Protein backbone atom coordinates (compact mmCIF):
# COMPACT_ATOMS: atom_id res chain seq x y z
CA UNK A 1 0.00 0.00 0.00
CA UNK A 2 1.68 3.15 -1.12
CA UNK A 3 -0.49 5.61 0.76
CA UNK A 4 1.73 8.62 0.43
CA UNK A 5 4.15 7.14 2.91
CA UNK A 6 6.77 9.82 2.39
CA UNK A 7 4.24 12.50 3.32
CA UNK A 8 3.34 10.89 6.61
CA UNK A 9 5.30 13.30 8.74
CA UNK A 10 3.44 15.89 10.78
CA UNK A 11 4.70 18.84 8.77
CA UNK A 12 3.44 17.59 5.42
CA UNK A 13 -0.03 16.55 6.50
CA UNK A 14 -1.78 19.61 5.10
CA UNK A 15 -0.64 18.85 1.54
CA UNK A 16 -2.30 15.44 1.35
CA UNK A 17 -5.50 15.14 -0.67
CA UNK A 18 -6.62 12.34 1.59
CA UNK A 19 -6.07 14.55 4.61
CA UNK A 20 -8.23 17.28 3.11
CA UNK A 21 -10.95 14.69 2.44
CA UNK A 22 -10.54 13.32 5.93
CA UNK A 23 -11.22 16.71 7.48
CA UNK A 24 -14.49 16.85 5.56
CA UNK A 25 -15.30 13.29 6.64
CA UNK A 26 -14.88 14.42 10.24
CA UNK A 27 -17.69 16.90 9.56
CA UNK A 28 -19.93 14.06 8.40
CA UNK A 29 -19.44 14.57 4.64
CA UNK A 30 -20.43 11.21 3.12
CA UNK A 31 -19.35 12.26 -0.39
CA UNK A 32 -15.86 13.01 0.88
CA UNK A 33 -15.85 9.65 2.61
CA UNK A 34 -16.76 7.88 -0.63
CA UNK A 35 -13.93 9.68 -2.43
CA UNK A 36 -11.53 8.76 0.36
CA UNK A 37 -12.56 5.11 0.23
CA UNK A 38 -11.98 5.01 -3.53
CA UNK A 39 -8.52 6.48 -3.02
CA UNK A 40 -7.38 4.18 -0.22
CA UNK A 41 -9.33 1.02 -0.99
CA UNK A 42 -7.00 -0.79 -3.40
CA UNK A 43 -3.77 -0.29 -1.47
CA UNK A 44 -5.61 -1.22 1.72
CA UNK A 45 -6.88 -4.43 0.18
CA UNK A 46 -3.40 -5.26 -1.09
CA UNK A 47 -1.85 -4.80 2.35
CA UNK A 48 -4.62 -6.75 4.08
CA UNK A 49 -4.31 -9.59 1.57
CA UNK A 50 -0.52 -9.75 1.85
CA UNK A 51 -0.71 -9.82 5.63
CA UNK A 52 -3.64 -12.16 6.14
CA UNK A 53 -3.46 -14.19 2.91
CA UNK A 54 -7.14 -14.90 3.24
CA UNK A 55 -9.63 -13.24 0.90
CA UNK A 56 -12.61 -13.13 3.27
CA UNK A 57 -10.49 -11.95 6.18
CA UNK A 58 -8.87 -9.25 4.08
CA UNK A 59 -12.26 -7.99 2.87
CA UNK A 60 -13.63 -7.99 6.40
CA UNK A 61 -10.64 -6.14 7.81
CA UNK A 62 -10.87 -3.48 5.09
CA UNK A 63 -14.57 -2.97 5.74
CA UNK A 64 -13.90 -2.65 9.48
CA UNK A 65 -11.00 -0.29 8.95
CA UNK A 66 -13.10 2.07 6.83
CA UNK A 67 -15.96 1.81 9.32
CA UNK A 68 -13.58 2.86 12.07
CA UNK A 69 -12.25 5.67 9.90
CA UNK A 70 -15.84 6.92 9.47
CA UNK A 71 -17.04 6.54 13.05
CA UNK A 72 -13.82 7.83 14.63
CA UNK A 73 -13.17 10.56 12.08
CA UNK A 74 -13.40 13.23 14.76
CA UNK A 75 -10.29 11.78 16.40
CA UNK A 76 -8.13 12.45 13.35
CA UNK A 77 -5.57 15.13 14.05
CA UNK A 78 -3.82 16.46 10.90
CA UNK A 79 -1.06 17.90 13.06
CA UNK A 80 0.04 14.37 13.92
CA UNK A 81 0.29 12.97 10.38
CA UNK A 82 -1.52 12.32 7.14
CA UNK A 83 -4.86 10.61 6.80
CA UNK A 84 -3.10 7.84 4.87
CA UNK A 85 -0.76 7.10 7.75
CA UNK A 86 -3.60 7.30 10.27
CA UNK A 87 -5.76 4.95 8.23
CA UNK A 88 -2.90 2.54 7.59
CA UNK A 89 -2.33 2.32 11.31
CA UNK A 90 -5.97 1.41 11.85
CA UNK A 91 -5.67 -1.24 9.16
CA UNK A 92 -2.42 -2.66 10.51
CA UNK A 93 -3.90 -2.94 14.00
CA UNK A 94 -6.96 -4.73 12.69
CA UNK A 95 -4.79 -7.10 10.63
CA UNK A 96 -2.66 -7.94 13.63
CA UNK A 97 -5.74 -8.38 15.82
CA UNK A 98 -7.21 -10.66 13.21
CA UNK A 99 -4.15 -12.82 12.74
CA UNK A 100 -4.80 -15.06 15.76
CA UNK A 101 -8.15 -16.06 14.35
CA UNK A 102 -6.67 -17.28 11.09
CA UNK A 103 -5.09 -20.66 10.62
CA UNK A 104 -1.89 -21.06 8.61
CA UNK A 105 -3.01 -20.40 5.09
CA UNK A 106 -1.47 -23.20 3.14
CA UNK A 107 1.00 -25.98 3.79
CA UNK A 108 4.21 -25.86 1.80
CA UNK A 109 3.40 -29.06 -0.11
CA UNK A 110 0.00 -27.68 -1.13
CA UNK A 111 1.58 -24.57 -2.51
CA UNK A 112 2.50 -26.33 -5.69
CA UNK A 113 -1.14 -26.97 -6.52
CA UNK A 114 -1.59 -23.26 -7.06
CA UNK A 115 0.53 -23.25 -10.19
CA UNK A 116 -1.40 -23.22 -13.41
CA UNK A 117 -1.81 -26.92 -14.37
CA UNK A 118 -2.35 -26.12 -18.04
CA UNK A 119 0.58 -26.85 -20.37
CA UNK A 120 2.71 -23.76 -20.85
CA UNK A 121 6.18 -22.80 -22.06
CA UNK A 122 9.05 -23.62 -19.74
CA UNK A 123 9.59 -20.03 -18.67
CA UNK A 124 5.96 -19.67 -17.68
CA UNK A 125 6.10 -22.92 -15.77
CA UNK A 126 9.15 -21.80 -13.84
CA UNK A 127 7.56 -18.43 -13.09
CA UNK A 128 4.37 -20.09 -11.91
CA UNK A 129 6.37 -22.47 -9.76
CA UNK A 130 8.41 -19.64 -8.25
CA UNK A 131 5.25 -17.71 -7.51
CA UNK A 132 3.74 -20.76 -5.84
CA UNK A 133 6.85 -21.30 -3.73
CA UNK A 134 6.88 -17.67 -2.63
CA UNK A 135 3.19 -17.84 -1.81
CA UNK A 136 3.65 -21.02 0.21
CA UNK A 137 6.67 -19.64 2.04
CA UNK A 138 4.86 -16.39 2.81
CA UNK A 139 1.92 -18.36 4.15
CA UNK A 140 4.20 -20.05 6.65
CA UNK A 141 5.68 -16.82 7.95
CA UNK A 142 4.47 -15.13 11.09
CA UNK A 143 1.84 -12.50 10.10
CA UNK A 144 3.95 -9.77 11.69
CA UNK A 145 6.84 -10.81 9.47
CA UNK A 146 4.53 -10.83 6.44
CA UNK A 147 3.26 -7.42 7.37
CA UNK A 148 6.78 -6.04 7.73
CA UNK A 149 7.78 -7.48 4.35
CA UNK A 150 4.64 -6.11 2.71
CA UNK A 151 5.20 -2.64 4.18
CA UNK A 152 8.91 -2.60 3.33
CA UNK A 153 8.93 -4.20 -0.12
CA UNK A 154 5.31 -3.66 -1.16
CA UNK A 155 4.68 -0.14 0.12
CA UNK A 156 8.27 1.06 0.26
CA UNK A 157 8.04 2.32 3.83
CA UNK A 158 11.20 3.03 5.79
CA UNK A 159 12.13 1.19 8.97
CA UNK A 160 11.00 4.16 11.05
CA UNK A 161 7.65 4.35 9.26
CA UNK A 162 7.05 0.62 9.67
CA UNK A 163 8.02 0.89 13.33
CA UNK A 164 5.44 3.63 13.79
CA UNK A 165 2.74 1.64 12.04
CA UNK A 166 3.51 -1.52 14.02
CA UNK A 167 4.01 0.35 17.28
CA UNK A 168 7.52 -0.90 17.81
CA UNK A 169 11.09 0.29 17.30
CA UNK A 170 13.03 0.55 14.05
CA UNK A 171 15.56 -1.89 15.49
CA UNK A 172 12.82 -4.42 16.14
CA UNK A 173 11.59 -4.01 12.57
CA UNK A 174 15.11 -4.67 11.29
CA UNK A 175 15.18 -7.90 13.26
CA UNK A 176 11.72 -8.85 12.08
CA UNK A 177 12.63 -8.28 8.44
CA UNK A 178 15.96 -10.07 8.79
CA UNK A 179 14.31 -13.16 10.27
CA UNK A 180 11.52 -13.05 7.70
CA UNK A 181 13.93 -12.95 4.80
CA UNK A 182 16.12 -15.70 6.28
CA UNK A 183 13.13 -17.95 6.87
CA UNK A 184 11.81 -17.31 3.39
CA UNK A 185 15.17 -18.11 1.84
CA UNK A 186 15.45 -21.32 3.85
CA UNK A 187 11.94 -22.47 2.99
CA UNK A 188 12.36 -21.68 -0.67
CA UNK A 189 15.71 -23.48 -0.82
CA UNK A 190 14.20 -26.51 0.89
CA UNK A 191 11.38 -26.77 -1.63
CA UNK A 192 13.76 -26.19 -4.48
CA UNK A 193 15.85 -29.13 -3.28
CA UNK A 194 12.75 -31.27 -2.77
CA UNK A 195 11.52 -30.66 -6.27
CA UNK A 196 14.99 -30.82 -7.83
CA UNK A 197 14.67 -27.37 -9.39
Amino acid at each position, binding site marked *: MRMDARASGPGTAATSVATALMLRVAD*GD*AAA*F*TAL*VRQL*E*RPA*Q*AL*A*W*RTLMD*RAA*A*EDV*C*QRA*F*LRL*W*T*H*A*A*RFDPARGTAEAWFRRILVNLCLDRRRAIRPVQAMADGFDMADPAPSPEAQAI*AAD*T*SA*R*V*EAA*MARLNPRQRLA*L*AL*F*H*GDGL*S*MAEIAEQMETTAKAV*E*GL*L*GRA*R*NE*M*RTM*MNETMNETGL
Partner: protein
Amino acid sequence: MTALTPDAAMAIISSHGADAARWPADVAPALKALAARDAAVAAALAEAQALEADLAGWLAVTPALAAVDVAAITAHRQEQPQEQPQEQPQEQAGRARRSASWRPALVAASLTMMLATAGWLAMPGAGPISPGDQSPNTPARSPSAVAEADETGLVFAQVFTPTAAEEDLI
Protein backbone atom coordinates in the same frame (compact mmCIF):
# COMPACT_ATOMS: atom_id res chain seq x y z
CA MET B 1 33.59 5.87 5.46
CA THR B 2 32.42 3.63 8.33
CA ALA B 3 34.41 0.39 8.68
CA LEU B 4 32.22 -2.66 8.19
CA THR B 5 32.84 -6.31 8.95
CA PRO B 6 31.45 -8.97 6.60
CA ASP B 7 29.06 -10.17 9.30
CA ALA B 8 27.73 -6.66 9.87
CA ALA B 9 27.37 -6.19 6.11
CA MET B 10 25.42 -9.42 5.77
CA ALA B 11 23.17 -8.43 8.67
CA ILE B 12 22.33 -5.17 6.92
CA ILE B 13 21.62 -6.99 3.65
CA SER B 14 19.44 -9.43 5.54
CA SER B 15 17.29 -6.73 7.15
CA HIS B 16 17.40 -3.95 4.54
CA GLY B 17 17.58 -6.06 1.40
CA ALA B 18 19.67 -5.78 -1.71
CA ASP B 19 18.69 -2.26 -2.75
CA ALA B 20 21.60 0.00 -1.86
CA ALA B 21 19.27 2.99 -1.82
CA ARG B 22 17.56 1.55 1.23
CA TRP B 23 20.67 0.82 3.25
CA PRO B 24 21.53 3.18 6.10
CA ALA B 25 23.29 6.14 4.50
CA ASP B 26 26.26 6.02 6.88
CA VAL B 27 27.23 2.46 5.94
CA ALA B 28 26.09 2.22 2.31
CA PRO B 29 29.45 3.23 0.73
CA ALA B 30 31.38 0.80 2.95
CA LEU B 31 28.92 -1.98 2.21
CA LYS B 32 29.21 -1.46 -1.54
CA ALA B 33 32.99 -1.53 -1.31
CA LEU B 34 32.95 -4.65 0.82
CA ALA B 35 30.57 -6.44 -1.56
CA ALA B 36 33.03 -5.73 -4.37
CA ARG B 37 35.92 -7.49 -2.64
CA ASP B 38 34.38 -10.04 -0.26
CA ALA B 39 32.94 -13.16 -1.88
CA ALA B 40 30.65 -14.02 1.04
CA VAL B 41 29.11 -10.55 1.10
CA ALA B 42 28.75 -10.61 -2.68
CA ALA B 43 27.00 -13.98 -2.47
CA ALA B 44 24.66 -12.69 0.24
CA LEU B 45 23.87 -9.69 -1.92
CA ALA B 46 23.12 -11.88 -4.95
CA GLU B 47 20.91 -14.13 -2.86
CA ALA B 48 19.01 -11.12 -1.51
CA GLN B 49 18.52 -9.80 -5.03
CA ALA B 50 17.08 -13.15 -6.13
CA LEU B 51 14.72 -13.25 -3.16
CA GLU B 52 13.53 -9.73 -3.84
CA ALA B 53 12.89 -10.54 -7.49
CA ASP B 54 10.72 -13.46 -6.36
CA LEU B 55 8.99 -11.26 -3.79
CA ALA B 56 8.30 -8.54 -6.32
CA GLY B 57 6.39 -11.00 -8.48
CA TRP B 58 4.29 -12.07 -5.53
CA LEU B 59 3.67 -8.53 -4.32
CA ALA B 60 2.54 -7.43 -7.78
CA VAL B 61 -0.42 -9.78 -7.74
CA THR B 62 -3.37 -9.01 -5.47
CA PRO B 63 -6.62 -10.86 -5.97
CA ALA B 64 -9.64 -8.68 -6.69
CA LEU B 65 -11.45 -8.28 -3.39
CA ALA B 66 -15.02 -7.13 -2.89
CA ALA B 67 -15.42 -3.37 -2.86
CA VAL B 68 -15.92 -1.67 0.47
CA ASP B 69 -19.62 -1.18 1.24
CA VAL B 70 -19.69 2.58 1.70
CA ALA B 71 -23.46 2.80 2.24
CA ALA B 72 -23.32 0.29 5.08
CA ILE B 73 -20.60 2.35 6.73
CA THR B 74 -22.18 5.78 6.38
CA ALA B 75 -25.38 4.36 7.87
CA HIS B 76 -23.49 4.28 11.16
CA ARG B 77 -23.51 7.31 13.40
CA GLN B 78 -20.22 9.14 13.70
CA GLU B 79 -18.64 9.54 17.09
CA GLN B 80 -18.88 13.16 18.20
CA PRO B 81 -15.88 14.78 19.87
CA GLN B 82 -18.07 16.17 22.71
CA GLU B 83 -20.21 13.06 23.15
CA GLN B 84 -19.30 12.73 26.81
CA PRO B 85 -18.92 16.31 28.11
CA GLN B 86 -16.82 16.87 31.16
CA GLU B 87 -18.85 17.20 34.33
CA GLN B 88 -18.80 20.65 35.83
CA PRO B 89 -17.22 20.91 39.31
CA GLN B 90 -20.48 22.11 40.94
CA GLU B 91 -22.30 19.11 39.41
CA GLN B 92 -19.67 16.79 40.81
CA ALA B 93 -19.99 18.42 44.26
CA GLY B 94 -23.79 18.10 44.18
CA ARG B 95 -23.57 14.47 43.20
CA ALA B 96 -21.09 13.84 46.02
CA ARG B 97 -23.42 15.53 48.55
CA ARG B 98 -26.42 13.49 47.42
CA SER B 99 -24.34 10.34 47.59
CA ALA B 100 -23.09 11.26 51.06
CA SER B 101 -26.66 11.74 52.35
CA TRP B 102 -28.17 8.41 51.29
CA ARG B 103 -25.22 6.08 51.77
CA PRO B 104 -25.22 6.06 55.62
CA ALA B 105 -28.98 5.53 55.59
CA LEU B 106 -28.55 2.55 53.29
CA VAL B 107 -25.85 1.06 55.51
CA ALA B 108 -27.98 1.54 58.64
CA ALA B 109 -30.99 -0.06 56.97
CA SER B 110 -28.88 -3.02 55.87
CA LEU B 111 -27.50 -3.52 59.37
CA THR B 112 -30.97 -3.34 60.92
CA MET B 113 -32.25 -5.90 58.45
CA MET B 114 -29.31 -8.23 59.18
CA LEU B 115 -29.81 -7.97 62.96
CA ALA B 116 -33.53 -8.57 62.68
CA THR B 117 -32.98 -11.62 60.49
CA ALA B 118 -30.28 -12.98 62.79
CA GLY B 119 -32.49 -12.46 65.83
CA TRP B 120 -35.42 -14.19 64.23
CA LEU B 121 -33.25 -17.12 63.15
CA ALA B 122 -31.87 -17.39 66.68
CA MET B 123 -35.35 -17.85 68.10
CA PRO B 124 -36.04 -21.50 68.93
CA GLY B 125 -38.41 -23.03 66.43
CA ALA B 126 -38.13 -20.14 64.07
CA GLY B 127 -38.96 -21.01 60.51
CA PRO B 128 -41.21 -23.73 59.26
CA ILE B 129 -39.47 -27.01 60.01
CA SER B 130 -41.37 -30.11 59.17
CA PRO B 131 -40.40 -33.41 60.75
CA GLY B 132 -39.10 -34.62 57.40
CA ASP B 133 -36.69 -31.70 57.19
CA GLN B 134 -34.72 -32.84 60.18
CA SER B 135 -31.67 -34.83 59.30
CA PRO B 136 -30.83 -37.94 61.33
CA ASN B 137 -27.88 -36.07 62.80
CA THR B 138 -29.98 -33.23 64.14
CA PRO B 139 -30.22 -33.61 67.90
CA ALA B 140 -33.78 -34.06 69.18
CA ARG B 141 -35.16 -30.98 70.89
CA SER B 142 -36.02 -31.26 74.57
CA PRO B 143 -39.70 -31.24 75.56
CA SER B 144 -39.27 -27.85 77.25
CA ALA B 145 -37.77 -26.38 74.10
CA VAL B 146 -40.65 -27.74 72.06
CA ALA B 147 -43.13 -26.26 74.52
CA GLU B 148 -41.36 -22.92 74.43
CA ALA B 149 -41.44 -22.94 70.63
CA ASP B 150 -45.11 -23.81 70.68
CA GLU B 151 -45.78 -20.95 73.07
CA THR B 152 -43.92 -18.50 70.85
CA GLY B 153 -45.88 -19.74 67.86
CA LEU B 154 -49.08 -19.32 69.78
CA VAL B 155 -48.25 -15.72 70.70
CA PHE B 156 -47.30 -15.05 67.06
CA ALA B 157 -50.59 -16.54 65.90
CA GLN B 158 -52.58 -14.57 68.45
CA VAL B 159 -51.06 -11.30 67.36
CA PHE B 160 -51.19 -11.84 63.63
CA THR B 161 -54.20 -14.08 63.04
CA PRO B 162 -57.29 -12.00 62.28
CA THR B 163 -60.39 -12.49 64.41
CA ALA B 164 -63.74 -13.42 62.85
CA ALA B 165 -64.75 -9.74 62.92
CA GLU B 166 -61.55 -8.75 61.25
CA GLU B 167 -62.03 -11.51 58.65
CA ASP B 168 -65.41 -9.97 57.82
CA LEU B 169 -63.86 -6.59 57.44
CA ILE B 170 -61.19 -8.00 55.14
